[in-house]
Structures are given as structure tokens and as C-alpha cells.
């Protein structure tokens, strides 16, 4: 009777476990779907921020190009009347180089996939001896659900890293806008100064040493602005030695360290 009772009990237990196992498998699948969705959202976040930052960087490049191609020739035209100008051509502003430089800074590492480990033969036999068929079925599904949970946790870390990368892009875009605004303001000042210089030369002739202090000051200011424009155009949007960049690197490295740890834990 014991064996019969065991048999009937085993059947009932098996039905229960099969149902429980099925429910856990469904839950795990949903969890995996959610985890992959979260990873996808992370990638999308980084992609959107990168695209927006690209636009802002392109805007800086456009402003620089406009100054070099339009305002600088005006200056040369006016000022070269009184002093010889040796204009050196810099390497052309390479927008792609700027973008690549930024992208090197902020790359979202790929997410490892957390896979359920099947029982080895040894584990199966030992598990069946100590836990039985029904429990092993449940455990198999629990492992699956556990792997899905780990996937979700890894996805959360990836998303957090995406937020960090997004913060870096935001900072770069904000800085790029500041440089754009500065370039525009300086260009306005430069144009005004060139016009003032043109009038001064027209009024006083070509020997600057005969000019009044005020008029010499006008010319000196124009040259100082021209040199300042040269310096500002030269300044990279991302200063690798700046505090923002160092802090960004530290933040990204911290995230990468955790992502690496997470990937190793998930794969283990």
C-alpha cells in the first residue's frame, strides 16, 4: 500500500509541479522580454543623446567655418593695409574627428546574456535521489527564472550606464552650445571692430605711429580680437584635461567596471 500511496502522491505532486513549473517558465519569459526591452531602451537613450550631441557639435563646426570663410577675409582685407599679415591655414575643422573623439568617450558596452544552466547528469541523479522528479522540475524552472531575474538586473545596470553616458552627452552638448554662443558673440564683436578699424585707417592713413592713442587702441583691439578668434576656434569642444572630462571618464569607467563585473557574474 505504501508504494501505491507513493505512486498516487507522486502523480498529484507531479501535476502540481508541472503547473508550477509552467507558470515559472512563463514568468521567466516575460522577465527576459522586459530585460531585453530595458537594454534596448538603454541603447536608444544613448543613440538619441549621441545624435543630438552630433547636431550640437556640427553647429559649432558650422560657426567656426563661417568665421573662417567670411569674417577673417574681411579682417585681412582691412588690416593688411597697415601691416603685413601672414595667415597660416590650420588643418580644416574635421567634424567627423570631433564626433569620433566624443564617441570614444562614451560607448555603451554590450550586455551579456544570462543563460539558464542545464543540470549535469550528476546533478540530475543526485537531485532526483534527494529531491525527486517534481522538485527537480520546479528547480529547473526556478533556475530559468533566476537567470531571467539576473538578466533584468544586468539590464538595470546597463540602463544606469546609459544614463551616465547620456549625462556626458548632455554636458558635451551644453558645452558645445556655449562655445557656439561665444563664437557668435565674438564674431559680432569682431565684425564691429573690423568696421571701426576700416574707418580709422580711412581717416588716419597708413602710418599707425601717427595715430592718436585712441585710434591705436582701436587697431590693437581689432588685432587682439582676431588673435582671440584664432585661439577660440582652436579650442576643442571636449578638453581631455578639463575637470568635466576627467570626471566623465571616472564616471564612465566606474560604470564599465560594474558592467564587467555584472557580465562576469551573469556568465559564471
Amino acid at each position, binding site marked *: 500500500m505504501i508504494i501505491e500511496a507513493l505512486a498516487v502522491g507522486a502523480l498529484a505532486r507531479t501535476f502540481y509541479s508541472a503547473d508550477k513549473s509552467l507558470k515559472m517558465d512563463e514568468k521567466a519569459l516575460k522577465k527576459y522580454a522586459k530585460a531585453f526591452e530595458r537594454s534596448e531602451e538603454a541603447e536608444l537613450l544613448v543613440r538619441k543623446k549621441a545624435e543630438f550631441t552630433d547636431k550640437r557639435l556640427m553647429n559649432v563646426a558650422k560657426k567656426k567655418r563661417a568665421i573662417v570663410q567670411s569674417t577673417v577675409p574681411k579682417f585681412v582685407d582691412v588690416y593688411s593695409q597697415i601691416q603685413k599679415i601672414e595667415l597660416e591655414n590650420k588643418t580644416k575643422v574635421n567634424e567627423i574627428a570631433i564626433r569620433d573623439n566624443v564617441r570614444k568617450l562614451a560607448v555603451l558596452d554590450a550586455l551579456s546574456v544570462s543563460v539558464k544552466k542545464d543540470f549535469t*547528469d550528476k546533478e540530475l541523479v543526485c537531485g532526483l535521489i534527494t529531491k525527486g522528479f517534481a522538485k527537480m522540475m520546479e528547480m529547473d524552472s526556478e533556475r530559468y527564472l533566476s537567470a531571467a531575474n539576473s538578466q533584468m538586473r544586468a539590464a538595470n545596470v546597463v540602463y*544606469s550606464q546609459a544614463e551616465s553616458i547620456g549625462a556626458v552627452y548632455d554636458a558635451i552638448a551644453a558645452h558645445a552650445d556655449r562655445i557656439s554662443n561665444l563664437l557668435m558673440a565674438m564674431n559680432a564683436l569682431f565684425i564691429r571692430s573690423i568696421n571701426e578699424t576700416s574707418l580709422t585707417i580711412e581717416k588716419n592713413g597708413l602710418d599707425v*605711429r601717427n595715430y592718436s592713442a585712441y585710434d591705436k587702441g582701436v587697431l590693437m583691439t581689432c588685432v587682439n580680437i582676431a588673435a582671440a578668434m584664432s585661439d577660440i576656434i582652436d579650442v576643442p569642444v571636449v578638453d581631455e584635461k*578639463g575637470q568635466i572630462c576627467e570626471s566623465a571618464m571616472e564616471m564612465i569607467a*566606474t560604470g564599465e567596471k560594474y*558592467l564587467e563585473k555584472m557580465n562576469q557574474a551573469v556568465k559564471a
Partner: protein
Amino acid sequence: MNKDSDNMATEAMKNLGMMEQQANSNLGITYEYNEENRRKLWDSKKGKEDYKDKVFGDKETYVDPISGKVLHRSKKAAQNKYHMKNSEGENTSTKWAAHSAETDHINALKDVHDVAKHNPFLSDSDFKEIMNSDENYRILSKKDNTSKGEQSDWKVITDKNNGMSSEARVQMAKEKIGSDIALQGKFAVRTVENVGKEFATGAKDTLVKSAIPLTAEAVRKLCKVANGEESLGDAAKEMGKVVVDVAVAGGTNKLVLDVVNSQLRNSKNAVFSKFANSNQVAQIVTVAMIVKESAVKYINGEIDGKEFIEEVGVKGATMVAGMIGGSIGGEIGAILGGIAGTVALPGVGTAAGVVAGKVIGEVLGTIITTVACSAIVSVYNTSKHLNDYKLKESQIRKLETEALKEMENQRDKFKSIVEREHKYWDEEIQNGFNMILSSACEQTFNLQGVTDGLDKILALFGKSVAFKNLDEYEAQLDMPLKLSF
């Protein structure tokens, strides 16, 4: 398979042969299953008719609990009622078949024969008698009986597309389990009876020599897999050669195997399918399944050896004797022998049976203990690690919490630095422009103010103005002005 187990298996087969020769020549079920043997040796037309009469009693109709239809005792009555023929005497309808009663074997002769044919302690007449017992009969319509054909009950029960109602499935499952239990009980009792007769004829040594190596081999294989020395696949192949399902691994195991496995045979669960697809593997595992809970209790000291044996039952106990150790081998053997002796010679045979049983138990204990005791440690160690995934998940959870917290801290720190830097930038630019604009008006022109304002802006980039004052400016007027854009 290694030499020892080869020898063990060969020895077992020889002993089985010897036993068959020495014992009752009627024992042993005809091995080949075909129509002729089925009709002549195992099927019973009379049994089926008697059962039908018993079910119908003095009535002519019966409501089938599976199909819910009214069945007629008489085939002719069903044919007439459901108009099999038209007025010209031509066959025009088969509806009658759904209402004509037939007696069906719940457990098909072929299915049970596949297992029972290995049991050397059963005869064809035993098989016929048990298979044609009321517990293995049921009434079905001719139509259902024909469409079911060779399919097992479990296949019919678990087939989602056959249109069967849930109630009908439950009914069929109840009948199947009831029949399984009844048949296994009958086969077990008959085996023990016949074994008892064999003891009486002096074949006890043969039983010891044949059953023990086979049982030992099953446990030994299990231990090898548990120790990681062999894969289940290899063990299964070798067990197939040893024919483990003789005698002790026959009846009871099959019952557990059926109820546990059948329902899940079609399951997509990886754990199950790995086992269910191999009968040999399942047999090995069943050895452990029967005894596992009681073995754990015994090891934990919750029950003593006697209670352990009572819990597990004779066959399960025989199998696991070695896992517990030789000390209770004798105890198991005494009970095994006692039962056999009592059945064979009530009142008198018990003592002799106990002696014979002690021999079985002691030898069994000695043989299996050598391989099983070390393995049980491995079993429990491995089992402990089955929950490692929980540890891993907890580590990942901890890592996630730590990572999210630290990454957020770093982000806050970064944002605050950016904010501070941008604020400083905005202020310096604003101040620089204010200085330039306030000093640049013609009326109040202040060259130093303009220059300082410009210098303030350039300082943000680590630069300074080209000329700080007029002297510096004038000093270079004769030289070319170098600029780069």
C-alpha cells in the same frame, strides 16, 4: 562497462538460466508477442464476456462514464436501433458502433507483456489470469475501442486534440491508476508466491545470486553517475545490457514509472524529457526514487532500520540496502525472507524464509555498501550545490544594488561638476563681455578695460590677449602679423 560489472551481469544471466532450469518449468512468460500467442495464451474471450455480463447485470443498456453514451449489451440491438441497414438490407449507417458495448483491457496486453516477460517468476497462465481480472477491464463502445487501438490510456488522456471532455479524461485516468495499482499488486503477490515455491524447491541460492548482482548493478550505476564518473547515457546503455528489470526491478518500479512519467512524457521540461526518453535511465532513477525519502529519514535518525523497511516496502528496501549499510542488510533480508516463507508455507515456512532472507540481505548489504556508501556522500554534496543558482542570483542582486548606487553617486557628482563649471564659464564670459562693452564706447573708451575683458574670456581657455598694451602692439608693427585659422 568494466570487467566486474560484465562478470556480474554474465553471472546474473547464467544464474537466471540455472534458476529457470531447476525451478518450475512452467515459469517464464512466452517471450514473443504475436496475434497467435495473444489469442491462445493471454487473451480471454470468456473473461471479457463474464465481465460484460457482470457490468450489465439484468439490464440491456449501460451508460458509459467516459463517453456518456448509452451502450447496448447486444451488438444486434445497437445495429437495429441505429438503423445499420435500410429496407433493402444494405449497410447505410455506422452510428450503431458508438452504442455497442465491448470489453477493453485498460492496460493493454502488449504493454504489460513488454515488462512482465522479463520476470522469471511468472507463467503465461499467471499473466493471463491477472491481465483478465476485473480490475483491468472496462466497458467501451466499439467505436471508442477501435479508435483507441494500440494507444495507451495516457496518450489518449493527454492528447489535447481528440475532443475528449475533461470529465472523461479524469475518469479514464482514475481507471488507469486503479488498474495499475491493482495489477502491480497482483503481479507482486504472484511473484512472491512463486518465489516462495522456488525457495521450497531449494533454489534460494540461485535467487540470491541472480537478483543481487542485478540490483547491485542498478545501484552501482546510479552511484557512478552520482559521482560524476559516468554519464546517464552511458549508464543507460550498459544497464540495457544487464537487463536490470528482471525480478526486483520489475513490477513496483514500473508502477511508479508509469504514474510519474506518463503524464509528463510529452512535457517540454528539460529535466523530465532527459529521463523520460530512456527507459533504462528511468529504471536507474526509479531505484533511487522509491527509497529516497525514507533513506533521508533513516540517515537523519528519524526512523530506525525496521521502520525504514516498513516504509519503503520490500522491493525498495532490497534495492537500497547497500545505501544504508550491511548492518540492516540482515533485517531487510529477514523481512523479505519472512514474507516469502509465509506465502510459501504458512506458519512453517517463515523461519526458513527468514534464514534465506538473511542471506539475501547480508550479501546484498555487503555488495552494495562497497559502492554506495561513498557515493551517498557525493550525492548529498552535489545536492547541496543544486541551490547554487540562488547564491549566484543573490550575488547579482547585491552587485546590482551596489552598482546602481555607486553609478548614481558618480552621476550626481559629475552633474554637479558640470553645473559648477558651466556656471563659472557663464559668469566669466558675461563679466568679460560686460568689461569689453562698458569700456568700448567712444566717449568713455578704455583700452585697458577692453583688453582685460578679452583677456578674461581667453583665460577660460588657458590663453591671453596678443597685446597687453600699446607699447607691445607698436613694437611689432614692422613685422608681419602672424595668425592662423
